């Protein structure tokens, strides 16, 4: 009888283990279900993200279109004023388009506002644009060239557009327009300091909270023209455009 009592106890424990086992399996299935749910939501977020991007592109396209029409209207305004006037307004039209072509590494900051457009020459319906590269080793130049060419050639009256980068010209951080500085800040990138001497250390205020309590993490950043800094006030890392100025030889 004692033995059967023990047997019953073993059986009871056995059933208990089985019950726990089923419980674990149940929970396991639950976790899997949740996991699938998370994945589903993740896909949903991704889908929406793509949708937002698509709309964003659409808005940009419309923006360019409006800009284009705007120029068109302006151009028609000027056409009464003789051929010289017409040439000028065509140039304005090109400039307006260049204000919409963003630097591929600085989305929302146009190549115009970065001070990279040097000269626009229009002969009949052909456009030749001379641009100034920021840093010599910038790998984005080919992309910028392509983007500028495509945007200009989208204008009705333009037959062809040649873009050339001149290494003979010197880009300085002073060439960045006020709008460019503002747009950089929105990206979390501080504009370059106003006073800088080659070789000196420098600092800028935080683009997020405007605190001057910042530290240089690495003067060399993700691209040749940017540095990495850290804000001690709002505890955000941020980037700054690296200052370059004309070098005076003593």
């Amino acid at each position, binding site marked *: 009888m004692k033995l059967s009592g023990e047997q019953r106890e073993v059986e009871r424990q056995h059933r208990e283990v089985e019950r726990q086992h089923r419980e674990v399996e149940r929970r396991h299935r639950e976790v899997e279900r949740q996991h699938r749910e998370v994945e589903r939501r993740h896909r949903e977020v991704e889908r929406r993200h793509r949708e937002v991007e698509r709309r964003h592109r659409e808005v940009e396209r419309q923006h360019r279109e409006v800009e284009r029409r705007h120029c068109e209207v302006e151009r028609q305004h000027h056409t009464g004023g003789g051929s010289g006037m017409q040439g000028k307004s065509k140039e304005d039209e090109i400039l307006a388009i260049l204000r919409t072509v963003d630097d591929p590494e600085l989305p929302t900051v146009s190549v115009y506002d970065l001070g990279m457009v040097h000269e626009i020459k229009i002969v009949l319906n052909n456009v030749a644009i001379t641009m100034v590269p920021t*840093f*010599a*080793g*910038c*790998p984005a130049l*080919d992309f910028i060239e392509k983007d500028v060419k495509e945007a200009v050639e989208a204008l009705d009256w333009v037959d062809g557009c040649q873009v050339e980068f001149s*290494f*003979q*010209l*010197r880009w*300085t951080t002073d060439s960045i327009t006020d709008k460019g500085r503002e747009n950089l800040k929105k990206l979390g990138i501080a504009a370059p300091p106003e006073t800088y001497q*080659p*070789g000196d250390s420098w600092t800028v205020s935080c683009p997020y909270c405007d605190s001057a309590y910042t530290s240089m*993490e*690495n*003067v*060399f*950043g*993700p*691209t*040749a023209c940017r540095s*990495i800094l850290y804000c001690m006030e709002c505890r955000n890392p941020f980037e700054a455009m*690296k200052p*370059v*100025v*004309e*070098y005076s*030889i003593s």
Partner: protein
Amino acid sequence: MTKRIETADEAKQDAAYSEALKELIYQMADDDFIVSFRGSEWLGLAPHIEEDVAFSSITQNTMGHAVMYYNLLEELGEGDADALAHARPLEKRRNAVYLEKQNGDGSYLKEPYFDWALTVVRHYFYEVLKKVKLEALTKSSYVPLANIAQKVLMEQPYHLAHWKLWIRQLQNSNEDAKSRINMRIVEAWKEFGDALELGTKSSEMVQHELIAGEEFLQKQWLNEVKATVMSLPTYPLEKGLGNGRNGKHSADLKQAIKIFSEVYESDREAVW
């Protein structure tokens, strides 16, 4: 003063002028190119992550400087810039021989026993020289070269400041760091000699006011280095590895050419 030459076509009118000019540009181009190649081998291997970011940025930018010089040579009728960088045989190369020296034992892909002290000394010595030459080039009679020198001078202070900081910190560090740096400085003293020279056409270069003379450049370089490096050998610099300005190179350049021309050689017609 020699007439200022504004374009490549103008330079080509005078054979003696353009020969000296091309020789000088080859030296500038090949120095930047080989230094950035050796720098690129450190990618992912630098002592810490921020150094990796900094060093690769410097290297990429330096490669961009080499491209500008090769483009000048292309304008002067020397052929395609890509081919000048990748397909020129060893004996046609004009870089200083110390700059082609391998980073250490082993290779980039397999067991890279690279030496950081060699890299710090080499890049510091080179960036000081580059600054001295660029400053002289801003007064060059060849305007396109003077313009490029001005542009590079706006970017290069960052490179020089970086390596100067490393030299300063390591020579003020512990005994191990000090002795490693000193050893590499003594070594460089025996091998860096040709870097400070301008090759067989040096007098023509000065005569045509393309760049200041070797003596002046050497003095400037030495003054700047003396101001930073605590102990320097007292004897003159030597050319222990040969003279790259005359196309005499080491087996290390052969190894470099083999690697950096690999992709180019696999399809010379490829378009990006």
